[in-house]
């Protein structure tokens, strides 16, 4: 087939996945929170409220798009774009199966992190251009926190890279095939410190409680999105869920074997591999939402202190220790 057509189809698939994810995740969030909170969540609009998000999106499409007079016009319009596009690009490198990767880059992980690093710029642009002190404080908090936690996240992922021997996400998934001792899957989650570091840093990067101070509803009204209405708000809202999906997907890819099912040979899994991947990712999302509905929020300075004074040295140390362990006994080496 014409390579341009193939690329266009792949792009549309990623876009479609992102939008469908957004719709499903918003509904899932409301239902999960409701069940945790002894309520019912959306019930009236569709069987068990399944069409609720569709109606939400349609309503947002037709709201009046208010542009306050004093905003910085170009940045105000561009900010949702800067936030959503890198999120979309993150979908390109996720391995849904052995062959179903939109762009199987040999440095996929690095591409992913590079692209996700642009998102804080977008939220800063949104907060700054709104010409609203609340949005500004929300934006400053994001920049502070996300810049802080990019490094421990990268370093935690680095120890995984060392174990797999490659930066390509497909290779990392393949390195987790097989079992130890006959029944324990060779997942990288057994590298618990790396998992914990990555999980905490990722919660911050995707802006989830207990670190959601960017949109700390009880403090900052709506944080950086206070002045946004209609579809621009919809895009900002969508990007938050999209980032959460990407974080969970990366968690599954790096630590839980990606599209693989333990004890089942890879070839057998291939036809349903994308579904396995999505199910695993959604289990991760479920846990993140459960945490969101329960835990209180960490204060900004406490979170920054945690990042700089604890996570950064620990992640550096753990990278060194992982290297030493790999060299010493090839204890955690992958299939290479």
């Amino acid at each position, binding site marked *: 087939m014409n390579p341009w057509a193939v690329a266009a189809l792949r792009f549309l698939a990623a876009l479609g996945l992102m939008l469908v994810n957004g719709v499903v995740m918003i509904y899932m969030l409301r239902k999960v*929170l409701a069940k*945790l*909170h*002894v*309520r019912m969540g959306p019930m009236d609009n569709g069987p068990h409220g399944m069409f609720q998000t569709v109606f939400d999106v349609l309503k947002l499409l037709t709201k009046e798009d208010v542009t306050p007079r004093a905003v910085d016009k170009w940045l105000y319009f561009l900010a949702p774009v800067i936030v959503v596009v890198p999120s979309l690009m993150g979908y390109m490198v996720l391995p849904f199966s052995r062959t179903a990767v939109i762009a199987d880059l040999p440095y996929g992980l690095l591409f992913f992190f590079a692209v996700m690093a642009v998102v804080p710029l977008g939220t800063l642009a949104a907060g700054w251009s709104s010409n609203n*002190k*609340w949005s500004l*404080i929300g934006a400053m908090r994001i920049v502070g926190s996300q810049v802080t936690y990019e490094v421990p996240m990268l370093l935690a992922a680095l120890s995984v890279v060392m174990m797999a021997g490659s930066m390509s996400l497909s290779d990392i998934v393949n390195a987790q095939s097989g079992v130890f001792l006959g029944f324990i899957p060779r997942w990288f989650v057994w590298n618990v410190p790396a998992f914990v570091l990555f999980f905490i840093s990722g919660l911050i990067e995707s802006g989830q*409680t*207990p670190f*959601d*101070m960017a949109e*700390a*509803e*009880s*403090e900052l*009204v709506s944080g950086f999105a206070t002045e946004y209405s209609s579809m621009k708000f919809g895009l900002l809202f969508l990007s938050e869920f999209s980032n959460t999906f990407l974080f969970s997907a990366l968690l599954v890819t790096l630590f839980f074997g990606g599209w693989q099912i333990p004890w089942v040979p890879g070839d057998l899994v291939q036809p349903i591999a994308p579904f396995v991947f999505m199910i695993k990712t959604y289990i991760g999302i479920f846990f993140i939402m459960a945490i*969101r*509905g*329960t*835990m*209180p*929020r*960490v*204060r*900004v*300075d*406490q979170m920054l202190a945690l990042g700089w004074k604890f996570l950064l040295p620990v992640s550096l140390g753990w990278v060194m220790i992982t290297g030493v362990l790999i060299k010493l006994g090839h204890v955690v080496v992958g299939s290479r």
Partner: protein
Amino acid sequence: MQQLDTTVARGVLERAGVTAAVETVEGLGAVCRVPAAQTRAALLALRDSDLGFGFLVDLFGVDTGETIDIVYNLRSLTRDEELLVKAEHGYDATLASVWDIFPAALMPERETCEMFGLLLSGHPNPKRLLTTDGSEPFLRKSLEVRTAEEVRDRASQHVDAGALDITASSLADASAPAAETVALPASLPRVPAGVDVEHSQNLVLNMGPQHPSTHGVLRIILELDGEEIVAGETVVGYLHRGIEKLAESRRFNAVGTLMDRGDYVAGIHGELAFALATEKIAGIEVPRRANWLRVLLGELNRISSHIVWYGPMGLDSGAMGQFLYTFRDREALLDILEEITGQRMMFNYVRPGGVVNDITTTAEAKIRAFLETYDVYLEENAELLMGNEIFQARTRGVGIFDRQTALAFGLTGPNLRASGVNWDIRRDRPYAAYDEFEFDVPVAEAGDIYARCQVRLEEMRQSARIVRQCLDGMPEGEHTAKVAKVLRPPAGEAYAAVESPRGELGVHLVTDGSDTPYRMRYRPPALYALQAGEAFLPGNLIADGVVLMGSVDLILGEVDR
């Protein structure tokens, strides 16, 4: 309570050079009249002498028709004595602020001056508190409320929505001489002079009045250096509805409806304070069963009020879950209250003479069922939020009111007990059968936000204990005394206080022999808590400031009345 020896007080005042008249009034206690110009000297002498009147319970005004009496209700915690100091002012006088002697006077003075049309001198932030410019001095007797015809003709009230002005300017009297100030409590971060919005060099941020976490229509203006609060000012009055003024035109058994809507989550306590004050003046003896019923519902109301505080406390720190779990428990409580009083919220249950209905056996069964599950749920909710490390890291050591400050700012209730002062009106000035019950009064030493949370949670457990004793030992009898349909108490004056979930809810009632009160003053514990919270905002981060204002348990209906 000890009776103040008036000769000792007279001696103290004479030594300070104040010409005062101290006497004991039947039903009210010791009253001291001082000339307006010597008020500061008198209060200073009373505070610093052996009499130790260091706690300002309330400050308010009464329009007697010829003068405006400013009343200072003082209490000595060391000697367990009370004293009312009254100073007569003319209609256009200037009130000399006593905020440096009693920092608790900060907001009540502003309110008294705007409500009676006086000027204020020597005050760091002498702005109007509750009303906007152009408002009449509402509490003066010369000002009438709307007539029934005006109210019926609703269409004739015109509001130009585009030209609403909410400036509240200063009531300062520039010509008054500056008085020498007295030393302030050491822990006060800065003089609470408010935020200068126009000239500030820092970021000035406005929270509210529409804000998810300000617990009602409270507006907080913050001057920020980064995320740290440099100065803070609270603006109230968005819910000022004239409870005190409207009480002057309602019959005595209808004032309860107004008190319900003051502190609207603890309606029973507001009604009870007013009923007690009326009963003191009218000499009504309340039957024992009625008192036990008052205790029963008061304690149930205390639990439901603390739930309304505890849920949003978690929400302020971001934890949504336990907010909804506590509301599930509150629904069960409201079912019980509805069964007994007929209403979920505005009970209108406690009237002068007793209570309106007796409890039914279904209500009793429901209460027992509730208590069974409640013990478990309370511990769960406590563990969920209080046991959480993130919450503890945010609340331990934050927002500390030390003992001296708490007393100086007139804090009462759980806020005071969390700072180490063991004072509870149910035990120390018993009312309505509380002396027949066995309960502990929780006191904490730390004075931080976590301590206040601990004290309130323990109070909820103790309330459950009292409710059990109440059900087990309920005496037979009438649920109300025989009271005239239209009550006309003799002319008199009385102060009655109850321990509401927020602190000392007091009603100072002045009657003139007619069927409506002459003046009703509602002492709002939340107002004193608010000004203490406001004074201690500087030095905290925004997030801590929000949690601090939540931890002092504000209900704006009470603050604004």
